[in-house]
């Protein structure tokens, strides 16, 4: 419609021109010459610099808009169908994304009790986890045995874990984070993403998260050296730990109750209250009493030596 409207004045002009020509030709002996100027409008536009400048601005705007649109489309395509994209999250996990899966590498130190991987998972996600590396459960034993050149009393453990065969370990096994999983194997837990830190400023674990620490009310998966197709039950962040005993108040109380069974004390092979500290005679004199007083939940973790490379594969749905 707009073109037709624009066309009209030019047609009228051409008509007038033709009439003039007709008049002239009738005067000159019935001879008519018609000149068709098809491109007059374009030429006129070129002759007007303001119009041309506006036209150029419009073209530049259109190009910018097209580029923005195409870039947004490219970004959407990239986010849904990434092609070997490598990223990392703020907790140091390396994420290699592909069209149908993502592979995440993350280093886990065995001395950390529930180390935050920063990997967010949703309920229903299907993931496969593989681990490699080895760790030792007691640095002081390692040093003493190395100094005395004798066979290690505690062997280095692979991600599958295992106990050291002593009666003490067997009795203690029911207090570890997961009773069904092997002792010292690698565990994974999904914690709500509202938990920013399990520790306070002084480095001690916050008591409010005890149920996540000792596994009593937590969503725990036994991983070992690897586990295929784990279906995630709750949304949250993945945390990792080895299956040892997290000494929360509740666990310590249960252990002490078992240990002080009439006529059969120190069944768990507990050591004495550190001799360089003033014992709290009212509560008790074992190492557990000291740990409880200090809220030293990871007392049996901090002496671990060694790291694991955790590889997580997540299929895209």
């Amino acid at each position: 419609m707009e073109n037709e409207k624009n066309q009209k004045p030019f047609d009228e002009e051409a008509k007038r021109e033709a009439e003039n020509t007709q008049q002239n030709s009738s005067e000159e002996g019935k001879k008519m010459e018609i000149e068709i100027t098809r491109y007059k409008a374009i030429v006129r536009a070129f002759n007007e610099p303001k119009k041309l400048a506006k036209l150029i601005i419009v073209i530049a705007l259109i190009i910018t808009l097209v580029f923005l649109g195409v870039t947004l489309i490219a970004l959407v395509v990239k986010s849904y169908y990434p092609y070997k994209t490598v990223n990392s999250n703020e907790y140091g996990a390396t994420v290699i994304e592909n069209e149908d899966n993502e592979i995440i590498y993350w280093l886990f130190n065995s001395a950390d009790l529930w180390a935050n991987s920063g990997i967010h998972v949703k309920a229903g996600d299907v993931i496969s986890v593989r681990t490699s590396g080895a760790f030792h459960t007691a640095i002081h034993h390692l040093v003493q045995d190395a100094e005395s050149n004798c066979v290690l009393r505690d062997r280095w453990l692979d991600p599958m874990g295992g106990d050291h065969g002593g009666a003490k370990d067997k009795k203690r096994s029911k207090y570890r984070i997961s009773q069904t999983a092997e002792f010292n194997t690698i565990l994974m837990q999904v914690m709500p993403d509202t938990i920013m830190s399990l520790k306070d400023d002084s480095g001690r674990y916050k008591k409010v998260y005890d149920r996540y620490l000792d596994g009593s009310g937590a969503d725990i998966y036994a991983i070992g050296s690897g586990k295929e197709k784990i279906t995630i039950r709750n949304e949250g962040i993945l945390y990792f730990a080895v299956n040892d005993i997290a000494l929360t108040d509740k666990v310590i109380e249960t252990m002490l109750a078992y240990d002080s069974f009439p006529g059969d004390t120190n069944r768990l092979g507990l050591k004495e209250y550190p001799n360089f500290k003033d014992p709290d005679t009212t509560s008790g004199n074992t190492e557990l009493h000291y740990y409880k007083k200090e809220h030293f939940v990871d007392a049996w973790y901090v002496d671990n030596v060694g790291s694991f490379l955790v590889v997580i594969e997540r299929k895209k749905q």
Partner: protein
Amino acid sequence: MASLFSLIKQAIFSRTQSDVTIHERTFVTELLEAEHKGDPFALYDFFPRKYRGKNLVITRHLIFIFRCIVLLFIGLIYIVYDLIHKIVTGQWKSKRLSPEVLKRRVPNTKWAKRLHADKWRGMPSSTGVNAIIFTFVIIQAILLLVFALNFLIREVVMPDNEASINNKGVVSIDQGVLETQHFFLLNSATCWTSSGIAVSKGDRVYISASGSMYSDVGEMNTAADKNDTLKYPRSLFYRDGGGISEKDVECCIYGRCSSDMKDTNNRPYFGSLLYQICDETHGAELYNNPDNHKNKEKDSIPVNQVDFDKFKNKILADDMFHFDADKSGILYFSFNDILLDRDMIDKIVKGDVCSKEVRDDMLKMASAKEVEEYSMNKELMVERNFYKEEEKNLKGKIDSLETINKEKKSNHNDSILIALQIDSLEKKLQICQDTIDSLFLEAQIRWLKDSDHVDDKIWFADNLGEALINVRVERNIWNNDMPLYKKLLVAMYRGVNELWKPTSTTISWWSKPSEDSWSRKVHDWLEKPRHYRLYLAILIVIAYFTLDAIVSSCLKPKKCRTRPRRRRRKQSAEVQE
């Protein structure tokens, strides 16, 4: 056109015309024969000749420079056009032009008339110049679109992703759009490890790390043996991991310089991850030493701390610690621990900067036997032995006096006299013992300061743990050899990407508002990526309509313009009259 043809037909059938000749002029003919309107440098008219604005940024000088650039561009096109025009019209053969051509070529402007019309003879029409400009813009636009599509497909959607490993064991994967992702394992027992990752000035570097470390394996062993708590918390590199240690931080490599303490939001802490960019031939600077930089103006601090929590909880998800490189060089990494160099030994001995535990730990390294046998300590040891003899004598005298005192209990006056003597001897003994201690301490310091005895990195060697470091480098586009069009495309892409996946820099203006305010609620709502995308979509729609309005106003300026108020008043006054 239909009306024109019907007119011709009518003329033929009514036989008013005996002969009809129809000439259809081509676009080139029309263009070449177009009449002059405006200056040959036609776009010049588009810009104001006089600028009356009071804007501080857009000054008359700036407008003048802009005009010069535009005129230069148009002038260049004009020369090309003139050449083509002369060849097409055959003007290059004859020097004289027909009067019709000359008439057409005199511009019908005041400026041209003022400058004598004769001077403009032989100059082509401005229409042609404008046509070339327009064609040039159209070709450029098409090329830009083709390049943009090629760039987006090859660099964004399906980049090459070539992986390589450098001589330091760092795995590097190209990510397209001038981005490279690197990752490597860093052992905590080394002081300043070269990553071999080259960065240029202006590059943006993103860092993250996983793993943990403990800074004293000996203490870890003792604590485990005694069932004791650890002296320091384990270092997880980020603060919200809990338990950062700020104890003795003034002895650490990042913290010993007064400038390290200036940033209150990023206070140094023990066991943190440090980085610096330096020339590989010179190697890393061990710590920030103001003496090395006092002669250089605006010199940056080489050693910096990675603050993994800097952008957390303040901005949107996936925002990692990042910084803009202020110089070119190689990235070096280290953990924040105590470097036991000569200056630090002095400071620790004085006890100004550290706890007593650190001081005792250091002095433990210099055992009595080694200190006594050290050749540089001979004089001190002779002096110490002299005082030791003196100490022995004094002790002997005191013992003998005490024995006499015990035996002669009857005489009260004698016992008082002996007690006074013992007292003065004990004072001398105390001075003597202090002298012995100070001489031994001096001998210890001499022994410690000898580079053969103590490695200055000895307290790094007892660190236990490692970190998997991720480094993403976004290259500075302006400090690169690639073509300009590609630079522009990358810049535009990054702008869009920044909006799509914003970092703290994008919304740094959006400071955390106070509690219980409406802006705080909006801020918290926006922190979730899903909400941000919605917000972004609304912004894009608004931007689209704004651009649409601009385009429409450009195409139909009359509709958008309003009549000036003065003219309207004049017209209304005329109507009233």
